[in-house]
């Protein structure tokens, strides 16, 4: 039953909840950012638009914008296609399968982007395992071009975007009523059609938030497309980075950042209009699902002739070859397991290389050695940067997921238009190139005396982690049945206790997911670390980056191996503890 609470109560609660997060964003993001972007109007102390004129008239910059959006768009589409079966299996499969997939898809975060892309170059290259296998099996006669072109770029980008997409989709899937799919089956829908016409539309909020998230994160791709792509124009962030880091041309960097931000927000506005317009859903709820259903239903209609043919030539349904009723889900499981394994593969290769120190990518058994681990564990700077990264990421995860939770709860009962605007405000930190934010943050923290502290890293990373966590939590909060809260209220639960006893427990799995995303975002960050690290607080990615870029230091592999090992151990232990406590509860 939809409700129309007194407008005052709604607004008061929303204001109370949203004030903190918005102030946080304002202080630690918008104020410093605007200071930086303001530079785009100044050249040598003169106010001017000439930077914008130059950016908008140069083929180099325009191409960079086109490529940046193209890259983000295709990465989003591909991540959706690849991530959907994975999320589906996570939501519907057993807890062990879920654990396996989770471990696999977050693996890419445990190594430096540089190393990870190098592994792909080795795997997909002329003499890589894919081409050598295909040639060995005589499937192809010449090596295929799988890298240094768009194929390579998208493999690399989807590889890292997968957890973002999967966790968003998962958040919209785990509350879906399975009996609806059953109902569809009794009405004659085969597995495919009931999946697409019934299940998929209901995941529309997850599809939208996952796509948004992947899209904006993809705008900031730095290393991956550069290493895996062919000879193509640089993306906007690369240019921003070059202007800022190499040529010290701040105004141009600020100009490009502002343009990127403006273009992206404009795109969102158009998208939102399209998604929300033209359906009869009440109070804007469920509108996305209806919209998506309409679309899929149209496609489904197009398949009629094919089905007619099929029906004509297929034998009596009850006399058809028997398939076990469970054979179909296994296909999805197989796909998901395959995708997860492929995701983990390059990282496992890197881990392996840590044990077989050899500068070439050949692994020879005779080479087995723990030398690089010894080097890793005996070096202070490595151990301490690893610890710093963990500390910063953990605190960031706690802070960001709390902010996201509070924000999502505050947005919960606001009118859709206001909600969209506020969500966009929460998304900006990821649209602005991270280097631009990194430098802005430096000025801010310098002013308030936090430079060189871990706190500054935590605050900076929290800003970066707000967009993904807010998106996940908004989707999760929307999937909660309002009637449960009503019921709790009628049983005497004050808003606070409803939150504590009903909403929070129901949101717990997704809060954990959002904390994980925040953790990964922090743990993987390089751009902000480039500015905010100090002798006292150096993060692992910065350490990995430095040593990789300047030394090809083999400890990079050892560090990745240690992290992968730790993660697997931590997740498995958590899983065991949880299943034990479950079985104790009966």
């Amino acid at each position, binding site marked *: 039953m939809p*409700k129309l609470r007194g407008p005052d109560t709604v607004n008061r609660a929303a204001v109370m909840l949203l004030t903190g997060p918005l102030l946080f964003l304002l202080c630690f993001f918008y104020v410093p950012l605007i200071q930086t972007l303001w530079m785009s109007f100044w050249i040598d102390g003169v106010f001017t638009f000439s930077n914008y004129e130059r950016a908008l008239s140069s083929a180099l910059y325009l191409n960079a914008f086109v490529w940046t959006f193209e890259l983000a768009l295709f990465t989003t589409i591909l991540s959706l296609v690849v991530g959907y079966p994975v999320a589906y299996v996570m939501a519907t499969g057993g807890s062990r399968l879920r654990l396996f997939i989770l471990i696999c898809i977050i693996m890419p975060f445990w190594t430096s982007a540089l190393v990870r892309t190098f592994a792909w170059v080795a795997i997909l290259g002329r003499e890589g395992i894919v081409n050598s296998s295909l040639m060995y099996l005589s499937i192809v006669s010449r090596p295929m071009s799988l890298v240094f072109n768009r194929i390579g770029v998208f493999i690399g980008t989807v590889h890292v975007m997968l957890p973002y997409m999967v966790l968003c989709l998962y958040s919209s899937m785990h509350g879906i009523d399975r009996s609806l799919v059953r109902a569809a089956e009794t009405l004659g829908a085969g597995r495919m059609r009931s999946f697409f016409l019934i299940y998929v539309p209901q995941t529309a909020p997850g599809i939208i938030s996952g796509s948004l998230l992947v899209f904006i994160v993809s705008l900031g791709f730095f290393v991956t497309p550069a290493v895996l792509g062919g000879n193509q124009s640089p993306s906007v962030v690369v240019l921003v980075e070059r202007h800022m880091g190499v040529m010290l041309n701040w105004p141009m960097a600020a100009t490009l950042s502002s343009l990127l931000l403006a273009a992206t927000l404009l795109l969102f506005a158009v998208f939102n209009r399209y998604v929300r317009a033209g359906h009869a859903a*009440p109070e804007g709820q469920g509108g996305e699902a209806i919209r998506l259903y309409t679309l899929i239903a149209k496609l489904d209609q197009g398949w009629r002739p094919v089905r007619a043919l099929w029906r004509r030539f297929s034998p009596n349904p009850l006399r058809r070859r028997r398939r076990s009723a469970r054979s179909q889900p296994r296909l999805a499981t197989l796909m998901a397991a395959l995708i997860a394994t492929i995701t983990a593969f390059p990282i496992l290769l890197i881990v392996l290389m840590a044990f077989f120190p050899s500068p070439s990518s050949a692994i020879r058994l005779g080479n087995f050695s723990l030398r690089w681990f010894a080097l890793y564990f005996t070096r202070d700077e490595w151990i301490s940067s690893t610890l710093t990264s963990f500390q910063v990421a953990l605190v960031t995860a706690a802070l960001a997921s709390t902010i996201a939770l509070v924000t999502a709860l505050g947005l919960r009962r606001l009118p859709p238009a206001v909600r969209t605007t506020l969500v966009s405000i929460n998304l900006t930190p990821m649209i602005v190139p991270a280097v631009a934010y990194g430098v802005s943050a430096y000025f801010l923290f310098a002013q308030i005396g936090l430079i060189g502290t871990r706190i500054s890293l935590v605050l900076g990373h929290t800003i970066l982690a707000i967009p993904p966590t807010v998106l996940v939590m908004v989707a999760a909060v929307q999937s909660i049945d309002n009637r*449960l809260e009503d019921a709790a*209220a009628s*049983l*005497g639960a*004050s808003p606070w*206790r409803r939150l504590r*006893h009903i909403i929070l427990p129901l949101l717990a799995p997704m809060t954990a997911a959002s904390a994980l995303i925040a953790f990964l975002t922090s743990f993987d960050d390089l751009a902000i670390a480039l500015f905010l690290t100090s002798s006292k607080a150096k993060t692992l990615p910065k350490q990995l980056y430095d040593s990789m870029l300047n030394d090809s230091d083999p400890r990079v592999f050892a560090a990745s191996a240690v992290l992968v090992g730790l993660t697997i151990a931590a997740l498995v232990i958590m899983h065991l503890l949880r299943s034990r406590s479950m079985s104790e509860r009966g």
Partner: protein
Amino acid sequence: MKSAVPARQAGSLELRSLRKSYGGVVAVDDVSLSVRAGEFLTLLGPSGSGKSTTLMMIAGFVQPEAGSILLDNTDLVGIPTHKRSIGVVFQNYALFPHMSVAQNIGFPLRMRDMEEADTRDHIARATALVRLHGLEERYARQLSGGQQQRVALARALVFQPPLLLLDEPLGALDRMLREQMKHELRRVHQELGTTLIYVTHDQDEALVLSDRIAIMKNGRVEQIAPPREIYERPVNQFVAGFMGESNFLGGRVVGEHGGTATVKIGELLLQGVPSSGIRADQDVEVFIRPEKIVFTAPGDEKGWAGTVKDLIYSGDSIRYVISLGSAQVIVKQTVRQGVYLPARGDAVSLSWDPLDIILFPS
């Protein structure tokens, strides 16, 4: 059961010109009624007549567009649900999926910070009350429909609110269990003086349990009265037809004198019918309930001759569809040794007392 919280309210309720519409659809339209503290009021009405919406407004989930709701003379508008202390059993249960049966039932006690031991006690008693012993540790999805409904019931009863709103709380229960639950509701109602507002589709339930029944139609209250009055003196044709079974025969008042009318139905002439303000030469609907009609010996002079068209067996009784020339009536006959039970096609003779007839203007 001891009261979980000292009932600060007595539980008298008054609705004044309540109104709520969704888009163009008026769900509740100018509903006014007042419920005494301790009264058992049933809302009865066709599907979509606004019963659930009315309850939702009283509970505070839906904001009325107009009108006011007074609980013990305090206007509830603007008071949040959790301060209203109104127990609600939802049409669709609304059990908390992350809590076990015991935790669901214990929730309102927990919200009132009841002592651990007391809580256990209350939960045990409520669980027993709805016959769910042994299922305390199950989760909602592991229960059958009726079991879920009983959890919802126990959860609303356990904290003994002064006012209980129940939206078809027994809909998914079998007859025996329903009898027991009805009994419990009645006991709670009587012993604790709880005010109950009850939505049901089961008329028997309504008639047996209620102090008064409000019949709703299209968001309005058509009649509000004690069960017997609703059943025996419906104010209009809608109420008459809605509550209980009925025969309507088109007729015409040919004479009226001193509160008594003579009515002509086709060829047949009825005398001594209470005219209830209907005057001669008016077209009327002649209303008589199936159980008021009896078979007299076939060929009886005073009876009306008819033929058995169909019969419907329902255990304790059989409904006969009898054609009386152009008209058709249903006759309900108790099944018992020695009672005359005609077969299909039999010629029968019917009789009824004119005092059991009500006339409504056409």
